Protein backbone atom coordinates (compact mmCIF):
# COMPACT_ATOMS: atom_id res chain seq x y z
CA UNK A 1 0.00 0.00 0.00
CA UNK A 2 1.40 3.37 -0.95
CA UNK A 3 0.24 6.51 0.75
CA UNK A 4 -0.09 9.68 -1.30
CA UNK A 5 2.85 11.94 -0.54
CA UNK A 6 0.75 14.74 0.95
CA UNK A 7 -0.70 12.45 3.63
CA UNK A 8 2.65 11.30 5.03
CA UNK A 9 3.64 14.69 6.55
CA UNK A 10 0.40 14.66 8.57
CA UNK A 11 1.70 11.66 10.53
CA UNK A 12 5.11 13.24 11.22
CA UNK A 13 6.25 14.45 14.63
CA UNK A 14 6.16 18.13 13.63
CA UNK A 15 2.54 17.76 12.55
CA UNK A 16 1.49 15.72 15.58
CA UNK A 17 3.06 17.95 18.21
CA UNK A 18 0.63 20.92 17.86
CA UNK A 19 -2.34 18.52 18.04
CA UNK A 20 -0.84 16.89 21.12
CA UNK A 21 -0.30 20.32 22.72
CA UNK A 22 -3.89 21.39 22.00
CA UNK A 23 -5.29 18.20 23.57
CA UNK A 24 -2.98 18.47 26.59
CA UNK A 25 -3.87 22.13 27.17
CA UNK A 26 -7.60 21.45 27.08
CA UNK A 27 -7.25 18.34 29.25
CA UNK A 28 -5.15 20.28 31.79
CA UNK A 29 -7.90 22.91 32.09
CA UNK A 30 -10.58 20.22 32.37
CA UNK A 31 -8.71 18.30 35.08
CA UNK A 32 -7.96 21.48 37.03
CA UNK A 33 -11.65 22.41 36.84
CA UNK A 34 -12.63 18.94 38.11
CA UNK A 35 -10.18 19.21 41.03
CA UNK A 36 -11.28 22.69 42.08
CA UNK A 37 -15.02 22.20 41.54
CA UNK A 38 -17.02 23.10 44.66
CA UNK A 39 -14.04 24.32 46.68
CA UNK A 40 -13.09 27.78 47.89
CA UNK A 41 -9.86 29.47 48.92
CA UNK A 42 -6.69 30.65 47.28
CA UNK A 43 -5.35 27.26 46.15
CA UNK A 44 -8.24 26.52 43.72
CA UNK A 45 -8.25 30.12 42.48
CA UNK A 46 -4.55 30.02 41.66
CA UNK A 47 -4.80 26.49 40.19
CA UNK A 48 -7.67 27.54 37.96
CA UNK A 49 -6.02 30.82 36.92
CA UNK A 50 -2.77 29.09 36.07
CA UNK A 51 -4.55 26.31 34.20
CA UNK A 52 -6.48 28.88 32.13
CA UNK A 53 -3.30 30.75 31.20
CA UNK A 54 -1.56 27.48 30.32
CA UNK A 55 -4.54 26.31 28.30
CA UNK A 56 -4.44 29.53 26.25
CA UNK A 57 -0.68 29.20 25.87
CA UNK A 58 -0.58 25.51 24.94
CA UNK A 59 -3.81 25.25 22.94
CA UNK A 60 -3.72 28.51 21.01
CA UNK A 61 -0.40 30.35 21.07
CA UNK A 62 2.21 27.57 20.79
CA UNK A 63 0.41 25.64 18.00
CA UNK A 64 0.13 28.89 16.04
CA UNK A 65 3.88 29.39 16.38
CA UNK A 66 4.58 25.74 15.52
CA UNK A 67 2.26 25.85 12.54
CA UNK A 68 4.06 28.86 11.16
CA UNK A 69 1.05 31.21 11.41
CA UNK A 70 2.92 33.41 13.87
CA UNK A 71 6.61 34.05 13.36
CA UNK A 72 9.05 34.21 16.24
CA UNK A 73 11.17 37.35 16.47
CA UNK A 74 14.62 36.39 15.14
CA UNK A 75 17.77 37.16 17.13
CA UNK A 76 18.66 39.94 14.71
CA UNK A 77 15.48 41.76 15.78
CA UNK A 78 14.42 42.44 12.20
CA UNK A 79 10.79 41.33 11.79
CA UNK A 80 9.30 40.49 8.42
CA UNK A 81 5.79 41.94 8.25
CA UNK A 82 3.93 43.73 11.00
CA UNK A 83 6.39 44.39 13.83
CA UNK A 84 3.80 45.55 16.37
CA UNK A 85 1.69 42.39 16.12
CA UNK A 86 4.80 40.16 16.25
CA UNK A 87 5.88 41.92 19.47
CA UNK A 88 2.36 41.67 20.91
CA UNK A 89 2.12 37.91 20.22
CA UNK A 90 5.57 37.44 21.72
CA UNK A 91 4.45 39.26 24.89
CA UNK A 92 1.26 37.16 25.08
CA UNK A 93 3.32 33.97 24.70
CA UNK A 94 5.85 34.96 27.36
CA UNK A 95 3.17 36.05 29.85
CA UNK A 96 0.81 33.09 29.38
CA UNK A 97 3.47 30.38 29.40
CA UNK A 98 5.77 31.67 32.16
CA UNK A 99 3.07 33.35 34.25
CA UNK A 100 0.84 30.32 33.80
CA UNK A 101 3.44 27.92 35.16
CA UNK A 102 4.23 30.31 38.02
CA UNK A 103 0.58 30.71 39.08
CA UNK A 104 -0.22 27.01 38.54
CA UNK A 105 2.86 25.89 40.49
CA UNK A 106 2.03 28.29 43.31
CA UNK A 107 -1.53 26.96 43.43
CA UNK A 108 -0.39 23.33 43.56
CA UNK A 109 2.22 24.16 46.21
CA UNK A 110 -0.46 25.77 48.39
CA UNK A 111 -2.78 22.82 47.72
CA UNK A 112 -0.04 20.39 48.80
CA UNK A 113 0.66 22.48 51.91
CA UNK A 114 4.25 23.36 51.12
CA UNK A 115 3.98 26.60 53.09
CA UNK A 116 2.42 25.01 56.17
CA UNK A 117 4.31 23.78 59.18
CA UNK A 118 3.43 20.33 60.34
CA UNK A 119 2.78 19.90 64.06
CA UNK A 120 5.42 17.76 65.66
CA UNK A 121 4.22 14.34 66.74
CA UNK A 122 6.90 14.12 69.41
CA UNK A 123 5.55 14.10 73.00
CA UNK A 124 6.14 17.40 74.74
CA UNK A 125 7.53 17.08 78.24
CA UNK A 126 6.46 19.89 80.51
CA UNK A 127 8.69 20.33 83.54
CA UNK A 128 6.75 19.57 86.74
CA UNK A 129 7.92 22.70 88.52
CA UNK A 130 6.58 25.00 85.79
CA UNK A 131 3.24 23.22 85.21
CA UNK A 132 1.34 25.42 87.62
CA UNK A 133 2.40 28.27 89.84
CA UNK A 134 -0.52 27.66 92.20
CA UNK A 135 0.67 24.27 93.34
CA UNK A 136 2.26 24.15 96.78
CA UNK A 137 6.01 23.93 96.74
CA UNK A 138 7.45 20.51 97.45
Amino acid sequence: MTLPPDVLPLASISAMRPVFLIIMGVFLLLTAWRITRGTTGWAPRLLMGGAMMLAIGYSVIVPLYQGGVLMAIPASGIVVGDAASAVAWEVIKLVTMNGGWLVFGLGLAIHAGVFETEKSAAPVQVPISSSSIHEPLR
Partner: protein
Amino acid sequence: MSPFVDFVIKNGFLMDACGVIGLGLLGLGAVRLSRRYQSWGGSLLAFGAMLLLIGRLWVIVMKQFMTAKAAASMGHTMSELVMLAPFVLLTAGLAGVVWGLWGHEQWLRSER
Protein backbone atom coordinates in the same frame (compact mmCIF):
# COMPACT_ATOMS: atom_id res chain seq x y z
CA MET B 1 5.66 51.07 23.02
CA SER B 2 3.99 50.88 26.39
CA PRO B 3 6.22 50.51 29.46
CA PHE B 4 4.89 47.00 30.22
CA VAL B 5 5.57 45.66 26.72
CA ASP B 6 8.96 47.32 26.77
CA PHE B 7 9.75 45.68 30.12
CA VAL B 8 8.65 42.20 29.03
CA ILE B 9 10.58 42.29 25.75
CA LYS B 10 13.76 43.70 27.24
CA ASN B 11 13.71 41.51 30.36
CA GLY B 12 12.83 38.20 28.75
CA PHE B 13 15.21 36.50 31.13
CA LEU B 14 13.07 37.63 34.08
CA MET B 15 9.97 36.06 32.52
CA ASP B 16 11.90 32.83 31.92
CA ALA B 17 12.91 32.90 35.59
CA CYS B 18 9.22 33.19 36.57
CA GLY B 19 8.43 30.07 34.56
CA VAL B 20 11.34 28.13 36.04
CA ILE B 21 10.38 29.16 39.59
CA GLY B 22 6.79 28.05 38.93
CA LEU B 23 7.97 24.67 37.65
CA GLY B 24 10.15 24.30 40.74
CA LEU B 25 7.16 25.06 42.99
CA LEU B 26 5.10 22.55 41.01
CA GLY B 27 7.73 19.86 41.54
CA LEU B 28 8.02 20.72 45.24
CA GLY B 29 4.26 20.51 45.75
CA ALA B 30 4.05 17.27 43.76
CA VAL B 31 6.80 15.62 45.83
CA ARG B 32 5.00 16.71 48.97
CA LEU B 33 1.72 15.23 47.69
CA SER B 34 3.28 11.87 46.91
CA ARG B 35 5.38 11.70 50.10
CA ARG B 36 2.87 12.82 52.69
CA TYR B 37 -0.47 11.83 51.23
CA GLN B 38 0.69 8.79 49.18
CA SER B 39 -1.06 10.18 46.09
CA TRP B 40 0.21 8.22 43.07
CA GLY B 41 -0.59 11.15 40.79
CA GLY B 42 1.85 13.23 42.81
CA SER B 43 4.90 11.21 41.78
CA LEU B 44 3.93 11.34 38.10
CA LEU B 45 3.36 15.08 38.48
CA ALA B 46 6.81 15.48 40.04
CA PHE B 47 8.37 13.42 37.22
CA GLY B 48 6.67 15.58 34.58
CA ALA B 49 7.66 18.78 36.36
CA MET B 50 11.31 17.66 36.48
CA LEU B 51 11.31 16.81 32.75
CA LEU B 52 9.73 20.19 31.96
CA LEU B 53 12.26 21.95 34.18
CA ILE B 54 15.22 20.26 32.47
CA GLY B 55 13.79 20.94 29.01
CA ARG B 56 13.04 24.59 29.82
CA LEU B 57 16.50 25.20 31.29
CA TRP B 58 18.01 23.47 28.25
CA VAL B 59 16.17 25.82 25.91
CA ILE B 60 17.17 28.90 27.94
CA VAL B 61 20.84 27.86 28.11
CA MET B 62 20.86 26.87 24.43
CA LYS B 63 19.68 30.38 23.47
CA GLN B 64 22.81 31.75 25.15
CA PHE B 65 25.46 29.24 24.07
CA MET B 66 24.29 27.69 20.78
CA THR B 67 25.99 30.00 18.32
CA ALA B 68 26.73 29.09 14.71
CA LYS B 69 30.37 28.48 15.69
CA ALA B 70 29.45 26.10 18.51
CA ALA B 71 27.08 24.22 16.21
CA ALA B 72 29.79 23.87 13.55
CA SER B 73 32.30 22.51 16.07
CA MET B 74 29.81 19.89 17.27
CA GLY B 75 28.98 18.52 13.87
CA HIS B 76 25.64 18.20 12.15
CA THR B 77 24.21 15.14 13.91
CA MET B 78 25.22 16.25 17.40
CA SER B 79 23.91 19.80 16.98
CA GLU B 80 20.59 18.47 15.63
CA LEU B 81 20.38 16.19 18.66
CA VAL B 82 21.10 19.06 21.06
CA MET B 83 18.53 21.26 19.29
CA LEU B 84 15.74 18.65 19.29
CA ALA B 85 16.25 16.96 22.68
CA PRO B 86 14.55 19.71 24.77
CA PHE B 87 11.37 19.42 22.71
CA VAL B 88 11.17 15.71 23.47
CA LEU B 89 11.67 16.55 27.16
CA LEU B 90 9.04 19.33 27.07
CA THR B 91 6.50 17.10 25.32
CA ALA B 92 7.03 14.19 27.70
CA GLY B 93 7.03 16.55 30.69
CA LEU B 94 3.72 18.12 29.71
CA ALA B 95 2.22 14.65 29.28
CA GLY B 96 3.55 13.68 32.72
CA VAL B 97 2.11 16.78 34.38
CA VAL B 98 -1.32 16.35 32.82
CA TRP B 99 -1.45 12.60 33.54
CA GLY B 100 -0.24 13.20 37.09
CA LEU B 101 -2.85 15.89 37.68
CA TRP B 102 -5.54 13.54 36.38
CA GLY B 103 -4.24 10.78 38.66
CA HIS B 104 -4.27 13.12 41.63
CA GLU B 105 -7.85 14.09 40.80
CA GLN B 106 -8.84 10.40 40.71
CA TRP B 107 -7.04 9.86 44.02
CA LEU B 108 -8.87 12.83 45.61
CA ARG B 109 -12.17 11.43 44.38
CA SER B 110 -11.49 8.00 45.89
CA GLU B 111 -10.32 9.54 49.18
CA ARG B 112 -13.27 11.86 49.70
